[in-house]
């Protein structure tokens, strides 16, 4: 239960960190909050020979307004800081609502916003939230930088498009459109546990009150964030009546997800939760889009 030896670097700029990554490639790992990486090193599931610690790279710690009315979050911003940030509360309410569900306060004091996304745990909240919001991720290497949309970023079980010589440096959360609303719901055995199932909904209505945009994304039911595309298609252009929402929730459970069984929950139970959480999160998101309720 102790990590294997490694060489440790603590760069103070992103440029310097990228140089270490370029030199060491697959032998190196980036250390952000360490709340997922260090447990796997303690178990020796991960044995990187080089660790590049980002905790001194001050340029990666920030929350600031985006020019488009959204929010820009530096990858190293602590989860606990995002959780209490007024700009996040105002401009990215879905993120704000999801934060307290992530682990425990002691973990959030170290864990980072970017680390949680880069880790791509299928049971993690922020990957699903970032897909539901159409967040954009800025990825940097020595050669330059590229922007990737959240739905292209996650490619499978604990896997993203980030190459070994690249860093996730920034997450751009887009502004809330007019007549839009969102909701985050999850079921966990105890507060702070990984969710058995979670749902992130983000919707917008047109002038007549019909569904203009529906994103419904689940966590803990697949290899990464799972988008309920068929459920969304059913609602598109329709009035979000309770019947329409119920039909969409049933479609999400029967056609959009294919959850597995594990020691925490059976596939059937997860499917059941998908239906319930889909209905609850869509109902709340549409109510908020209509300006009803908090």
């Amino acid at each position, binding site marked *: 239960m*102790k990590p294997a030896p490694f*060489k440790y670097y603590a760069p103070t700029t992103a440029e310097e960190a990228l140089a270490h990554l370029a030199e060491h490639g697959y032998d190196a790992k980036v250390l952000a909050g*360490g*709340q997922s990486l*260090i447990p796997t090193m303690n178990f020796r599931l991960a044995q990187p020979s080089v660790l590049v*610690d980002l905790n001194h790279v001050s340029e990666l710690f920030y929350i600031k307004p985006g020019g488009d009315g959204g929010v820009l979050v530096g990858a190293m911003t602590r989860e606990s800081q995002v959780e209490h940030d007024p700009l996040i509360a105002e401009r990215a309410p879905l993120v704000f609502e999801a934060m307290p569900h992530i682990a425990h*306060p002691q*973990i959030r004091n*170290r864990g980072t916003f970017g680390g949680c996304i880069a880790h791509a745990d299928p049971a993690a909240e922020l990957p699903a939230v970032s897909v539901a919001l159409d967040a954009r991720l800025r990825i940097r290497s020595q050669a330059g930088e590229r922007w990737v949309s959240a739905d292209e970023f996650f490619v499978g079980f604990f896997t993203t498009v980030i190459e070994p010589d690249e860093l996730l440096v920034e997450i751009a959360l887009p502004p809330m459109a007019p007549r839009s609303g969102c909701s985050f719901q999850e079921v966990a055995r105890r507060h*702070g546990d990984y969710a058995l199932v979670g749902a992130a909904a983000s919707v917008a209505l047109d002038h007549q009150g019909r569904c203009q945009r529906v994103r419904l994304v689940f966590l803990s039911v697949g290899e990464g964030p799972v988008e309920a595309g068929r459920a969304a298609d059913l609602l598109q252009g329709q009035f979000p009546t309770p019947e329409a929402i119920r039909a969409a929730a049933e479609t999400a459970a029967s056609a959009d997800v294919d959850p597995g069984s594990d020691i925490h929950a059976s596939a059937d139970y997860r499917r059941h939760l998908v239906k319930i959480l889909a209905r609850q999160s869509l109902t709340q998101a549409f109510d908020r889009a209509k300006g009803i309720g908090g």
Partner: protein
Amino acid sequence: MDNLMNVTVTVNGTPYERAVEPRLLLSDFLRHELGLTGTHVGCEHGVCGTCTILFDGQAVRSCLMFAIQADGHEVLTVEGLGSVDKLHPLQQAFRDAHALQCAFCTPGFLMTLVPFLEEKPNPTEEEIREAIAGNLCRCTGYQNIVEAVKLAAERMGA
């Protein structure tokens, strides 16, 4: 052993300097290098909470940090909280409310709850239960821990 790195860290107000391997966990540094065995180690993967310490005033898992990451920082462990003659009010409340049996979990609960009570001097029962959700206790059933926090909040507010 090559690959040793220097770490200078203030623990409970006292500065220490040691040369350590980068892979040494902060929890092991406190226990083995400094002899501060009040910080307990249960799981070493962040789940049990018994290794919780204050790092620059914030509760963190010392098993999920490397000692070298504490270089230049301040750590508070349970040893720095109170003394045998003069317990911290939270420690006194734990004692009075029977909030410990084997006490393996107690240092982690205390170090979690000290910043919590600073932030929320009058917590509700629900807030208390949420605050301790990341700390496991196999003995008490948590009931008396919740009682102790209420008692401490009452006394500290008085």
